[in-house]
């Protein structure tokens, strides 16, 4: 398999079917959109801190020249809509699932490539097409979508009052993105199920693979659900069907706006688990590597993650408590949502168990992993408020929810993605990223993001509701202008620290100091091959003898680790 004629530039770098190249393509795309979405966040924060004041030059103020330099309400709505959409589907999904799913799965399970390499390539280019469609909405006269990333009809339908085609283009872009994701999911699952190397049982796979595998299962089951909903929405938006229109806006038989919400959240809730599962897996592995200790309760963690996956399909109603659902339904959703605490607490405790009695090395990936423990702890615990029907009556659609999901989604995923990038950079590019810059990047990001998202929860606790252009309009929110300003300032600091990340990458690539093989002394299979990893990965299919976390075994002398494909007798010296 390593003798493949991928010689021309086009087949090697553009239309490559090599999972490692596709991974890097997703990484570039994801990083681009991460910064694009991040810039939008800065603009949203500007408006919330300094309502209707001229946007400064360093925040690209020139974009708003037509409106006297300020952000207008319709642009503001576009900003938070596209920020959410882009961060979820165009930043996190490509960065975690596209990049690390693609890069890690074949390498860590010990095979040559994905099950369907051509499908893999198609998946990337479909995503690329989806990106073009989405970005094209910016050049429309009425701009991009502005109905929120949840795009509830009737607002998101033509009779909802949003002018222009932005909303329709949004729907189309998302359908394409869904197709890309489905292709990826089928590929990842098939690869894990069918191509594991000899000896690589399910419970010998690294937990990163568990996370990516479970995320792909959710993807393959639930993305078609949202695809169906989006097809119906697209028809409502284009040819005049009224599936989701009711009341006065429906000219014929009334449809059901809540039907869209159900379809959306039946996908939407598993989606948030899709986004976090890779992080759960990666953090479990990295904590083990940098504690030089097996991941505590590996099997329990894997099963707990699977339980959460199963439960996640039953809890979508907790996003809809205030829609007037029947009491019994509300109570059932609350109960099922709360049940998720049990497996979540268990694998969270296992993270702590890994650190306990370990030998902790605070390299950059470890700092980010511990950071994930912190932010996911806060994020997960604050979910309890939103799960409670009564508390949610008050907290629904406030900044509290925004703070909660930014902790679980943005903070955890961001820190997790950085942990992964810093960790696997030597494997992907043969170079270790600078450690000092990495640590400064961590501390700057960690401190500022905690300030930003914690205080978002605080202002939400005080009642500030979501998606509003100017909170100071309301007397019950007037006292929050100071804290809103500080949130903004720290969000700018957070943004600025990401520049360090880019600088680190560019500078390290420029310095080009080759990293040693397996710089972290890790046991998993991706470190057994030298950079540059050839097409086909392994010359001979590896045979796996050990689990993925054989660190500090007392019977292994000279080394504190035993690779998955190494025979323990070779290291015991009789």
């Amino acid at each position, binding site marked *: 398999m390593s003798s493949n004629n991928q010689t021309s530039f086009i087949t090697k770098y553009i239309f490559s079917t090599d999972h490692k190249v596709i991974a890097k393509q997703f990484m570039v795309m994801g990083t681009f959109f991460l910064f694009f979405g991040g810039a939008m966040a800065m603009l949203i924060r500007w408006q919330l801190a300094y309502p209707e004041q001229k946007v400064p030059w360093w925040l690209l103020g020139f974009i708003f020249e037509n409106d006297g330099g300020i952000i207008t309400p319709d642009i503001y709505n576009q900003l938070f809509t596209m920020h959410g959409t882009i961060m979820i589907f165009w930043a996190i999904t490509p960065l975690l699932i596209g990049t690390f799913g693609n890069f890690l799965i074949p390498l860590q399970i010990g095979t040559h490539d994905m099950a369907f390499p051509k499908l893999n390539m198609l998946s990337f280019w479909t995503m690329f097409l989806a990106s073009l469609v989405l970005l094209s909405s910016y050049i429309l006269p009425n701009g991009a979508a502005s109905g*929120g990333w949840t795009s*509830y*009809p*009737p*607002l998101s339908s033509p009779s*909802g*009052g949003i002018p222009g085609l932005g909303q329709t283009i949004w729907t189309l872009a998302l359908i394409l993105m869904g197709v890309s994701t489905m292709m990826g999911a089928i590929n990842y699952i098939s690869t894990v199920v069918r191509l594991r190397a000899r000896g690589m049982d399910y419970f010998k796979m690294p937990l990163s693979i568990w996370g990516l595998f479970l995320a792909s299962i959710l993807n393959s089951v639930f993305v078609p659900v949202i695809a169906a909903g989006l097809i119906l929405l697209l028809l409502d938006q284009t040819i005049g069907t009224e599936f989701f229109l*009711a*009341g006065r806006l*429906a000219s014929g038989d*009334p449809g*059901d*706006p*809540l039907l869209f919400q159900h379809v959306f959240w039946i996908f939407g809730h598993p989606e948030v688990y899709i986004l976090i599962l890779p992080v759960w897996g990666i953090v479990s592995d990295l904590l083990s590597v940098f504690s*030089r*200790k097996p*991941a*505590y*309760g*590996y099997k*329990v963690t894997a099963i707990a993650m699977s339980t959460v996956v199963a439960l996640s399909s039953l809890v979508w109603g907790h996003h809809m408590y*205030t829609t*007037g659902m029947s*009491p019994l339904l509300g109570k059932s959703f609350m109960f099922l949502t*709360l049940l998720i*605490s049990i497996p979540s607490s*268990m694998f969270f*405790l*296992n993270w*702590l*168990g890994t*650190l306990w*009695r370990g*030998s*902790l090395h605070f390299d950059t990936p470890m700092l980010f992993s*511990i950071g994930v423990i*912190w932010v996911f*702890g806060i994020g997960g*615990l604050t979910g*309890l408020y939103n799960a*409670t029907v*009564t*508390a949610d*009556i*008050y907290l629904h*659609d406030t900044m509290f929810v925004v703070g909660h999901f930014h902790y679980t989604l943005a903070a955890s995923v961001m820190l997790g993605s950085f942990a992964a990038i810093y960790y696997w950079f030597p494997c992907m590019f043969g170079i270790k990223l600078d450690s000092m810059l990495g640590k400064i990047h961590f501390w700057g990001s960690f401190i500022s993001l905690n300030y930003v998202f914690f205080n978002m*929860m605080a202002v939400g*606790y*005080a009642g500030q*509701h*979501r*998606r509003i*252009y100017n909170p100071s*309009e309301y*007397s*019950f929110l007037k006292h929050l202008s100071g*804290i809103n300003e500080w949130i903004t300032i720290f969000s700018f600091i957070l943004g600025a620290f990401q520049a360090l990340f880019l600088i680190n990458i560019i500078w390290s690539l420029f310095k080009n100091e080759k990293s040693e093989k397996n710089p972290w002394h890790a046991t998993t299979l991706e470190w057994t091959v030298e950079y540059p990893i050839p097409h086909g990965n392994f010359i001979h299919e590896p045979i796996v003898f050990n689990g993925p*976390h054989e660190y*500090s075994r007392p019977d292994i002398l000279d080394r*504190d680790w035993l690779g998955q494909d190494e025979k323990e007798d070779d290291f015991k010296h009789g």
Partner: protein
Amino acid sequence: MKTLYNKIKSKHILYSGIWFQDLPKDVSLDGYRIDNVISYTDLIISIYFGIVVALLAYFIYQYRASKGHKATYDHGDKRKNVLVTGGLGLLVFFSVDAVIETMAFKDLREAFWNFPKGENVVRIEVMPQQYAWNFCYPGPDNEFGTDDDIIPTQNQMHVPVNTPIVIQLASWDVIHSFYLPNFRVKQDAVPGMITPLWFQAKETGVYDIACAELCGNGHYRMKGYLTVETKEDYQSWLNENSVQETESDEWDDWDDDDDDSGVPENWSWVWEALK
């Protein structure tokens, strides 16, 4: 445990918790229930997160890599380990989840879904539109859809103090959400549906009404004012508005309020029987 619960219950207004911001002043009859469950959650998760932070700090210090110090090779997969982890998981579940669930179910049953009936219940129909709040009062005959219905100026809602107010919500166009921060009230107004809610005010004053579901470019300025007043003041306000109603008929053509996107003069619906 019970005494701790009661302690928090009595101090809920004072306990602004770990969020460093206070909940808005609550002037409703049942809002305290929500504040209580929030306060309890505040307390318990502070304790648990505090323990996690303490453990992290301890581990980071105690187990940092140093010469000669080897990690303990422990997979944590023996039965006792699993039982401890499982036990702790269940502990979290029963100390937090089960408690807040019990509190919430009780509150829903006793208050929020326990709609008041009787003579002194004031019924109001609320119909948000892009971007204003419309209210309809049944008038002296206490029936909606009749000539004496009172439709006051947009965004101005008045209710009498210490009286149960039952509201039916519908929407003129897209989905909105009726949000009364000082009463811990929030309910979506979905077109094609009528959603009920109820509350009771304990104090007079003027309070904010906001829209809590994105409804377009003017979502942020869908501000209303809820005036809670004595029964006498409320009655005189009603009388004023019923008089104004007939007078303003003459001024129909002059009324160019651009918020009034076609909402007809005498909108209302037949009051849906509550189940």
